[in-house]
């Protein structure tokens, strides 16, 4: 039967003359789609039919290809995966579609979108493979160019990110060093200053620069550069501030509260002034005292309280703000916060109330 099948197809397609009495064979000959037929049962599966479109595409003459296995189309850069895929499908008698790099007779490579289907006889044996080939070199080139462009773009983006990170570290480093330099200059000047009020002014400036430095140290240590944790800052600030005044007992009650990084420096300065103020007026040197700092969230606001147990507000609650409190009031305005001083019984309670959306 197989012999008969073979002959039937061979007769219809391989006959030297085809005409309108066999419109199917004529169509296969004439189509611009490259088509081939392979004898699946002959040794090494030779080509038994190729149409003119195949010859045009590959540059071979008919007598150069008939009787040969199609592997003459393969060349040095043909992917082994594609070759193995073909072998697997043909030995299993299964259809296969794949893109394979082939070579014309003149050696010019082209991408072949190959489709192969088995043709079975009445007994179900595979007697032929019918193949069609489309030259997709242009599409492949476009795909490769697109991939290369995407890879290049990814590389550029990665490099840009690396540059940006390096720049950020460099700037961070310089800012820290400059803050350190400013601090050291103020300390050196304070050491050389004998006048008490000048010394006090320099020390106040030192503590303000210190507050900004603490913010900066924290801001770049955290992973999120956009947010700033007030509780951590207050803990740092008090760790530094209390060491000179061992007789003052400090009580911290800190909820973790985030603010926008842009608000960190003004808030830090304001809190620093309030603490400084409490030390100056509420907690006289040499007297044991108590300083309480609370940070909490309440009804869409952040509340920061600084309480001392000193002599409290002057009668009537009115007092003339000094420079420190003046800048605290200005900073509170900037932060859209309210600043109040109340009698804490004993002492003074300063409260800074900020909207929590910032």
């Amino acid at each position: 039967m197989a012999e008969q099948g073979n002959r039937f197809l061979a007769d219809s397609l391989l006959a030297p003359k085809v005409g309108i009495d066999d419109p199917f064979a004529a169509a296969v000959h004439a189509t611009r789609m490259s088509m081939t037929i392979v004898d699946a049962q002959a040794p090494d599966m030779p080509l038994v039919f190729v149409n003119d479109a195949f010859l045009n595409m590959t540059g071979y003459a008919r007598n150069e290809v008939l009787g040969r296995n199609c592997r003459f189309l393969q060349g040095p850069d043909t992917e082994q995966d594609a070759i193995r895929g073909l072998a697997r499908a043909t030995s299993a008698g299964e259809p296969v579609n794949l893109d394979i790099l082939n070579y014309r007779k003149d050696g010019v490579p082209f991408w072949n979108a190959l489709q192969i289907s088995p043709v079975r006889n009445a007994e179900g044996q595979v007697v032929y493979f019918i193949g069609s080939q489309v030259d997709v070199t242009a599409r492949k080139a476009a795909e490769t160019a697109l991939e290369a462009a995407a890879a290049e773009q990814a590389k550029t983006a990665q490099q840009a990110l690396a540059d940006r990170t390096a720049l950020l570290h460099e700037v961070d480093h310089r800012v820290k060093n400059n803050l350190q330099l400013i601090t050291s200059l103020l300390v050196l000047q304070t050491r050389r200053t004998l006048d008490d009020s000048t010394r006090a002014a320099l020390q106040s400036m030192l503590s303000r620069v210190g507050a900004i430095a603490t913010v900066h140290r924290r801001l770049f240590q955290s992973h999120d550069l956009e947010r700033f944790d007030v509780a951590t800052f207050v803990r740092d600030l008090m760790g530094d501030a209390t060491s000179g005044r061992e007789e003052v007992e400090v009580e911290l009650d800190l909820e973790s509260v985030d603010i926008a990084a842009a608000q960190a420096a003004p808030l830090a300065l304001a809190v620093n002034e309030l603490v400084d103020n409490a030390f100056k007026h509420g907690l006289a040197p040499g007297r044991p005292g108590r300083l309480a700092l609370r940070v909490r969230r309440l009804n869409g606001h952040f509340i920061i309280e600084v309480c001392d147990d000193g002599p409290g507000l002057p009668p009537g609650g009115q007092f003339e703000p000094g420079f420190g409190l003046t800048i605290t009031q200005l900073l509170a305005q900037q932060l859209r916060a309210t600043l109040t001083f109340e009698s804490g019984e004993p002492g003074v309670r300063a409260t800074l109330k900020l909207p929590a959306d910032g």
Partner: protein
Amino acid sequence: MSHPLSVLIVEDEVLLAVELGFLVREAGGVDVGHALDSADAVRLARTLKPDLALVDVHLSDGPTGVDAAREIAGSAGAIVLFMTANLKRLPDDLAGACGVIGKPYSDRAVRRAITFVARCLRDGAAPELPPPGLVLSETFVRRWGVDQLEAAG
């Protein structure tokens, strides 16, 4: 250790070095030398044999402080404390240093850190948890028993 703590300062910013000198003396130590670059730092550490070297990462010959610290902590046998704004440049083992103070630091933080290290060296153990601003290396957390203090709360 009955003598006052001897300290070598390795810092390329002269003003910072001068100020550190004051802080060392205020903390009861003696500042025995000052190096601006890594070669000087290692040479002075070998000849002066200080108890403690305060080392910046960035020196006048580049980011050489880490290598210098390794030499000083190794062959020169001093305790090294980094003082740097470049925390990210430090290796995980801190190059053998006992710890690090991040810049910008306050004068109080440095005084307390030096006092703390002096007591650890004298007693061979930490008197209390390290002061704010001082971060110890894992090796020294164990050597000075800070892990036990932390566990004890």
